């Protein structure tokens, strides 16, 4: 149900959902880290200032509307001393202007303080993650001075809980924007210009994010998720991701790998440990370990994967993956192989 329909049919529930959030949805009012908490604090300060101004304005209007009209026969020009009324209105307008200016100035100062706090996260030994925007998916690498210790994945960013993480940004084509609302504000990914910012997640969980800068046809289907887990789980995940793809043993999976290596897949995708090494599309070495496909568009199930491989242009029209009209048993074998890539 759309938000508007909900607001009409069930206003109480819709408002409650707005402030409480729903599980699995990204939400600025449900911070999971220090930066989002700071931003939420600023949100509520501004909310209440604006709320008070709104109530006062409505009260003023109501008072004006409630006053009875002056009857016509009383509307005769009368010369009387208006200096008292003038003085009162000057005082009222002057104080209102002063309060407005002061409130705006206070909001400005608080925004600057919040900005400082959000940017001020530092650590001597941070975890560094390179996020590169592509039309329409996110390339995620964990760079390491030692090349074979570099993890490459897509759309799913694992971070340890309670540790500052540096996100290095770049883009391969157009401007994208990295926005995990429960964790931090937005940050643009500019092609050719790298930048860096910090995030920190304090509560374990899966937090969704979204591209927040219109980047083409499938901008709306360019999501990612941040998986925050305890340090040992994170290290285990990283160790698993460092491994090359598992050698298939099942004959169907062996056939599936053959299909992968002899069809269009090999032109764009990498599966480490095989001949497939192109960097155009997402790295599929550990595809089955991810929860979602196609930048958080489809669940990572057999059926969704089959639909995505055969006709990706129906799911995300305009994306870079071509349709793959495979023979049915080739397709089944290919999916079986891809499901083994844990």
């Amino acid at each position: 149900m759309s938000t508007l329909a909900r607001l009409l049919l069930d206003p109480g529930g819709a408002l409650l959902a707005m402030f409480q959030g729903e599980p699995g949805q990204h939400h600025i009012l449900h911070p999971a880290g220090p930066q989002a908490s700071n931003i939420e604090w600023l949100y509520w300060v501004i909310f209440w200032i604006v709320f008070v101004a709104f109530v006062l304005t409505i009260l003023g209007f109501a008072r004006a509307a409630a006053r009875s009209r002056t009857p016509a026969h009383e509307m005769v020009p009368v010369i009387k001393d208006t200096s008292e009324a003038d003085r009162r209105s000057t005082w009222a307008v002057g104080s209102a202007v002063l309060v407005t200016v002061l409130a705006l100035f206070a909001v400005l100062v608080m925004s600057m303080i919040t900005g400082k706090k959000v940017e001020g996260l530092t650590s001597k030994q941070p975890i560094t993650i390179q996020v590169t925007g592509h039309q329409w998916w996110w390339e995620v690498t964990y760079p390491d001075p030692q090349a074979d210790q570099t993890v490459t994945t897509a759309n799913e960013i694992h971070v340890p809980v309670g540790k500052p993480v540096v996100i290095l940004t770049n883009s391969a084509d157009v401007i994208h924007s990295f926005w995990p609302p429960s964790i931090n504000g937005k940050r643009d990914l500019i092609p050719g210009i790298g930048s860096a910012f910090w995030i920190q997640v304090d509560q374990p969980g899966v937090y969704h994010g979204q591209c927040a800068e219109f980047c083409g046809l499938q901008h709306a289907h360019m999501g990612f998720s941040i998986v925050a887990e305890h340090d040992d789980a994170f290290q285990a995940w990283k160790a698993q991701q460092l491994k090359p793809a598992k050698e298939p043993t099942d004959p169907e999976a062996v056939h599936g790998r053959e299909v992968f290596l002899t069809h269009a897949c090999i032109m764009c995708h990498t599966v480490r440990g095989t001949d497939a090494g192109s960097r155009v599309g997402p790295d599929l070495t550990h595809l089955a370990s991810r929860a979602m496909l196609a930048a958080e568009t489809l669940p990572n199930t057999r059926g969704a994967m089959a639909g995505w491989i055969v006709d990706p242009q129906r799911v995300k029209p305009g994306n870079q993956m071509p349709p793959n009209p495979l023979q049915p048993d080739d397709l089944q074998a290919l999916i079986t192989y891809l499901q083994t890539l844990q």
Partner: protein
Amino acid sequence: MRGYIPSVLLAAGLLILAGCKREAREFRPSPPASQVINTVQVSGINPGANPVGAPPAPNYYEESAYAVSQGKTLFQQYNCVGCHANGGGGIGPPLMDNNWIYGAEPGNIYATILQGRPNGMPSFRNRIPEYQVWEIVAYVRSLSGLLPKDVAPSRSDQLYVKPPEQSMPKQTPTGVTGTTETQP
């Protein structure tokens, strides 16, 4: 004098509408002629007195600016640049001149990509989907100015290493087949 203005505006509007066609984006296209590969003639020698001529292979991608720019993207992503550079050649022959060893017609280039050619050109059969091959064919032809100028890519996102395809001088193909003299 004033009577001209509406008709001029109308004509301008129609021109703008006509421009939309070349940007039409078809995401699930079918290749124009998948059987063409068996009838492509790569040699000038043919049996009998009458030359066979190139098979009819209307490449409608050559009329779509979107398809040609996709061809340009694929030309880089599929690493054609690894040997042919940005058309200037290197390990492989240059593509921006008027020498076509295996013919300049769309069908010839299509066959070259799918079949591969001696001395290094690999076969991309089954690797590149057919409609993408046609997009690459359209882009390769734009490299030597064989495409209408309003369709060819007009500027690069990178620093220029060569003039944009749109301002490439038109080349007259030579080579075994596909000369413009034999196929007007």
